């Protein structure tokens, strides 16, 4: 098991291979269909910096954050997979964390930006016991679909796409 702490440096990500099981600790971001396109829009417009939320070296976990807990939604939904490129290129996100197969074009784009896609099992009860803090940081009107920052300890995930390769090939 490879223990990694956020925010990730370029070297940490460069060492990851498809099939590696990692244990993630530190602060990560949570967002899904509703909020990810909004972040991309602000990054593309060059106004994201006004929010003072640093995404560099970060993780985006594709989940809602509700009293029921957290758990991955399908990352191949249009609004979610469509956010990968902007979040990595302009935001510096290094790990997209969710579930489901992603397109080969996305796998290549991740490699070009030294970023990875990791799959996390939908184990809400376990994840709840490993979640230490949660805070809504933007678009609170979206409720459970707002942008959250949570502090986690030992979230286990498997690297599903890295260096142009994917477990789905």
């Amino acid at each position, binding site marked *: 098991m490879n223990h990694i702490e956020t925010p990730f440096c370029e070297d940490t990500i460069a060492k990851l291979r498809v099939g590696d099981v990692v244990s993630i600790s530190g602060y990560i971001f949570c967002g899904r269909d509703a909020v990810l396109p909004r972040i991309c829009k602000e990054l593309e417009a060059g106004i994201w910096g006004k929010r003072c939320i640093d995404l560099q070296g970060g993780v985006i976990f594709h989940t*809602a954050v509700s009293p029921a807990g957290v758990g991955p939604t399908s990352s191949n939904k249009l609004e979610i997979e469509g956010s990968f490129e902007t979040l990595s290129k302009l935001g510096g996100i290094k790990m997209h964390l969710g579930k489901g*197969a992603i397109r080969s074009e996305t796998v290549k784009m991740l490699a070009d930006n030294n970023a990875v896609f990791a799959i996390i*099992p939908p*184990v*809400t009860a*376990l994840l709840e016991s490993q979640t230490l803090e949660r805070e809504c940081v933007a678009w609170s009107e979206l409720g459970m679909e707002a942008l959250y920052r949570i502090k986690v300890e030992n979230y286990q995930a498997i690297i599903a796409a890295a260096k142009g390769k994917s477990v789905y090939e």
Partner: protein
Amino acid sequence: MSSIIEKVADCLVRAGSTFREDQKEAYRRAIADEKMDSACWVMRQVLDNALVAEERRSPLCDDTGIPHLFLEVGPNKCVTGALLEEIKEGVRQGLRQLPGRPMAIKGDDYARIDQSGCLNEDSGALVPSPILIKPIDEDVLRLTVLMLGGGPAIRGITQRIFHKHSVDVVIDEIVNRAIPAVSQLGCSPCTLAIGIGRSQFEATSLMMEAMAKGDFGVQSDFEKRITEKVNESNTGPLGLGGKHSVLAVFAKIGPQRASGVRIVALRPCCCFEPRRANVELE
């Protein structure tokens, strides 16, 4: 709180937080039989999650699901409007206790479709689907609460199959539909719920009954054949490859029409489903 409301609320919490023994055993068998490390890792995580959820009486998955109700009524039992209202209230209380994900959409028809009406923050505001009622020989009034998640609903298919007077044709078509559905779902290993009837309504009702009554340890020849064929796809847990894309099939075959067509409802239930529990109300 009345006794019925309490029983229904407790039943809903159990449905959303607890694996049945046959379900745990199915995972243990699959883990022992699986060769791929990543597949074993996923299934161990799912089983560990179930043990933590059961101990804490907390949700198995953050998509806690939409409550679906299956009510079996014995010969001398009575269903009244008042009883149905108490069941509804029990669901509301159970959702607050679990807690269910607050995902009821507010607003008029258009606002509910395009989700512009915002979310209701009350977990209990999530109304259950219409109740399915079935008369049975056993003289009990038994409610089964099922919590149906969104992923399997997206990938579920209810459609006709032209059977060509061959069970093999029907099985092959079910398998052809199930393999991409399981792959796209992501949250495998799945349990395939299947209902075969004369109309979309009947097929779906039979599929619901299959989910309410199916047992991982008791599989018919029809069910085993589908499981084996889908597992040949090597999709595996979470799509990572392996022998166990599907743990079991729960199928219910109803009366059929004198015709060349069978209506088949198919739901790739996720790795936690069928999330269900039952309670005798009288």
